[in-house]
């Protein structure tokens, strides 16, 4: 894990939607984002995520493709509609991603902090 205090985090000050149903992973990611000086808004379900998108100003999102058996694509669609950049997270192989979304950035589970930071930085900071 990177020591974020030594140099300014690329994600500092961003509001990131974290859509992940795996409890332990969600907690770990939340911790991680916090260390990167970003604020995480958690949602384990599609409905919750849509509510948050509706309500909160967001700079980016991390979206698990499988949310307790429900695909996370509606969340991706809504984000896309609003022009909010996002990164998919999945344990599946890349080919399992639905056709229209294949060209989006993906973090393949498990990933380490560096991977997250690099992908998030390029996607959210552009």
């Amino acid at each position, binding site marked *: *894990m990177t020591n974020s205090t030594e140099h300014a985090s690329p994600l500092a000050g961003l509001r990131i939607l974290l859509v992940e*149903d*795996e*409890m*332990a*992973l*969600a*907690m*770990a*990611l939340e*911790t991680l984002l916090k260390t990167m000086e970003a604020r995480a808004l*958690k949602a*384990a*379900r599609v409905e919750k995520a849509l509510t948050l998108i509706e309500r909160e100003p967001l700079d980016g999102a991390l979206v698990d493709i*499988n949310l*307790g058996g*429900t695909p996370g694509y509606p969340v991706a669609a809504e984000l896309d509609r609003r022009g909010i950049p996002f990164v998919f997270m*999945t*344990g*599946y*192989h890349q080919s*399992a991603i639905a056709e229209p979304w294949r060209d989006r950035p993906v973090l*393949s*589970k*498990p*990933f*380490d902090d560096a991977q997250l930071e690099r992908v998030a930085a390029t996607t959210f900071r552009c």
Partner: protein
Amino acid sequence: MAKDADKNAGLSRAGKNSEAERPLVVGIGASAGGLNAFKTFFDHMPADSGMVFVLVQHLAPDHQSMLAELLGAHTRMPIRQAEDGTAVAADHVYTIAPGTTLTIQNGRLCVDEPGQARAERRLIDAFFSSLAADQGEYAVCIVLSGSGSDGTTGLKSVKEYGGFALAQAGLDEGVGSSMPASATATGLVDFCISIADMPAKLAEYARHLSAVAPDKDADGNRRDAAEHLRTISAILYEQLGHDFGQYKQSTLTRRVQRRMQVLQVDTMAAYVGRLRAEPEEQRLLFNDLLIGVTQFFRDPMAWQSLENTVLPSLLEHKPAGEQLRVWVPGCGAGDEVYSMAILITEALEAHRSKREAQIFGTDIDERAVETARTGRYAKPPAGLSEARRARFFTQEDDGAWRPSKKIRGMCVFAPHSVIKDPPFSRLDLISCRNLLIYMDSVLQDQVLRRLHYGLKPGGWLFLGSAEGVSRHDDLFETVEKKHRLFRRRETGAAEIPDFTSPVSREPRRHDHPPERATKPAAGGRIARAALGVMEKHAMPYVVVDADFRIVHFSGGPLTRFLAPAAGEARFDLFAMLKRPLRQVARAVLTEAFSGGEPAKHPNVPFRIEGRPAAANLIAEPFNTSGYGGGDTRLCVLAFQETPAGGDESAEPPADGRDTALEHELKVTKAQLNTAIRELETSNEEMRSANEEYQSVNEELQSTNEELETSKEEMQSVNEELQTVNSELSHKNDELIRTNSDLRNLLESTQIATLFLDRALNVRNFTPAVRDLFHLRDGDTGRPVTEIVSRLDYDDIKRDADKVLRELTMVERELEISDTDRRAYIMRIRPYRTVSDVIDGVVLTFTDITERKRGEAALRASEERLQRALEIETVGVLFSDPQFRLTEVNDAFLKMSGFSRDEALGKTWQQLTPPDFHENSNRAEAELRDHGYITPYEKQYYRKDGSRGWGHFAARMIGEEAVEFVIDITARKQAEAHRELLMHELSHRVKNTLATVQSLMTQSRDGAAGVGDFIARFGARLRALSSTHDLLTENHWRGTDLRDIVDIELMPYMRDDHPQWTLRGESVPIGSKTAVALGLAFHELATNAAKYGALSVAEGRIEVSWAMEPVDGAQRLCLDWTEHGGPSPEQPEREGFGLRLIRDGLAHELDAEITVTFAEQGLRCDMRVPLDADGEGGRL
């Protein structure tokens, strides 16, 4: 005619003097393929012939004619396409433009573009006809190769106007339909020669024309003709028996000249010599003289008038049952006769009359009569309306038209000369059209008298448009001048015309009335004699008609009052009467006619032989009726002599000495008187006998006419009989042929056939029957029941009787009883004669052994196939060439859920989901191209709309396609499931690894050292692992809440005794929620073991749970309560465990979690909403 043509010809000649330079105009007709003929012609034609050539060819209207270019190489003459108004010039060639009609008028070409259909046009006829009329004898027509008959009619015209005609020889021999053949058949073609010879003939003809030109008068007739014509007529009369002596001179001259041109004879004398020597020339001249153009209903207005005026009058006034008799002299090819028959038939129908009609068609020309009799028209008859043609003509197989039986039956044709032969008699109508125009006035006069004789009183005469009866008002009354309809006028008597016409006879005037003026009154001889005697004493008289023409003279001393005037003999009363009587006679007659009463004028003085005399003139009018139509008013003018002023009657006194002589004289006088009286009586008798003979003669004459007619009729009956006979003999031949065909059929057919009569005796049989019955040739006539049969069949009598009774067919399958077991089908049918009478039965035996074997093999094969089709799991589908299902097996129905009725008729498009249509299309194309397809997989629709997977293979069998399908839905599902599992496994493992990674991260925070980190992380991994164990046992389909709690507490068993109690029903928990709960219970248990109830032996944990309904859903309420342990303290910093429970779990499962650090121990309340799968957080 030719005269006009000469005057109008717009050729480049200065006048009559340059006649010699006048060019021939040569019309050449050929069909579209006539190019080579044209080439040959011009190859032989010098370019300076001085002639004009006009080429008429059948061309397609849109065809650009290359004729000019193509012929350019064959002649040096300029070639032009005909343009309207071009004056033709010598040594030029003109060609017809495509799609136009070309004619010539006044030496100029006329080009029309007709709207008429091309097939109807007769281009060559049109040009030739105009050429004939325009150029007369300078017209030449040449008919070259081509099919059809175009050119023939035009050629006739050319000949009629004295032109020259050539036809191509040696072409299409034996083909009657070619243009040259059709032209030659008219007999009018001058030379039928090869094309190469034609230019030479033309040159000869031109030379001849110019040689004779100076000899001609202004009308183009030869000046030396007249003197020779009588000789020519005499030759024809002698040799052929036809007298043309009184034909119009100009007509005769023209025809003779034409023959001279053809023969290249320059002088009349030479021609006469030739005519005398050559019978063939006589015949040719004769034919030429008879050229006639006829057509149906020629001059339609005149026919209309005939139809409207004459026929109704004839039909109304005629006594019922009397035959209508019509004579058409000079009938030519019969067109006029058939026209008449059509008209009369229509009129009879209009009057609903059953009256019979007989039309005599006669002509001097036997060929024409033959043509008329045959009544065959190669072309559709000209001049007939479509309706009449359809009604009165029938078209034969070869395309020729024939008059229907009905109208043919009305007509009788015979060769007959209206001049030479006795006329027909008792006629109602004579149609003599365009015959008189050929005759001079003397002959016309003679013919009209004959026609007058032939007509019944009131009969009608119908003449041609150029003819009239103006010189014969006494014979015919004009009814319609315009259409030349005349009616017989009553003269006192019908004259029996003179039937001889010697050629040498001087023309005779017929203006004299006959001696015998009235028919003798009926009555006995005595009465007549008495009348004769009395006549001397009666007043002399004359009978006159309203025009004061004398129609009757009395006997007696009439001559005392008459003094015929000098000059032409006339019957005019006033010309005959003595001059002093004329004035008074006119007055008296006028008074009598106008008053209708007798009138008298006494004592009119006049002189007889110089002596004065006087007479009373008495006139009395009377009517005669009974002759045809109306009454005729006549008037008798009688003369009554009265004593005149002087006393001439006083005789001087006689001398006494001569008494004896006087006495003798008196006696002698008396004797003489007696003798005279006797003589007069016998004279009278003679005269009346003579009159009787005359009338007998007349009757004989008409009997003779009738016999003539009967002969004609007999002849036509004979003709018909001959036809019938030849038909019969033809039929007989056919019958023999049919009979022999039948015999051959019976013998060659392998079907055994047995003919039986009504009594079931053998009548006939085919050779094959011998295989079944022991029949010999001699067995004909024996009952079939007596004949030994090899068949297993005894019911022949019963079956045959049934057939005869019910007239149905009986059919049986039989076998031969002995070794080879052959099978037969026997059919018994009634024997029907041609007239449909049942006269026995026919048995046929068809050998069906092979068929039966074949059938058995087929059945076996079908059964095999059927069993194959009944195979389960393989669907079999048959479809037609459009890939519509025609049959399917049960296996397919089972697979698809359709009933057979629903399935049949469906196409693969209907059964295949759209996303697989491409595969099916490919398969269909392959099937069509190769007859089979490489097996492939696709989805199909079941009846309920769901999709199944099938493995398909197909093959064409003839036109039909058969397809096999194996249902592979289960396999496909298994494959899909396996793939899903693979994905799921990957997902789970990676998620689990992600969880482990996060556990590791979390465990590091707050760890006292590596040992502590390993202990904590290990414990958490174990907790995760045990939950996984639980789930794996249940194949990840979830587990029970109790087991989750149990397995997390189990490691903290103290001396094999649990320090906890679990209370609650069985609650199924989904695998995901189970993992989350497992980690949570692990943290609670670890915490309890370190700081809580499980850290001391007295500590206890109570875990209880229950499901409660909230808002229609289920919620798990779980309480974790510790007691008996050390009192917990609120931690300064929330550790991972507490965060996981309070924050993570609440977040993940959407749960309400309360953690309380109470005095007696830690307490945790969970409220987790669960769905039907036992998963939290979804609601």
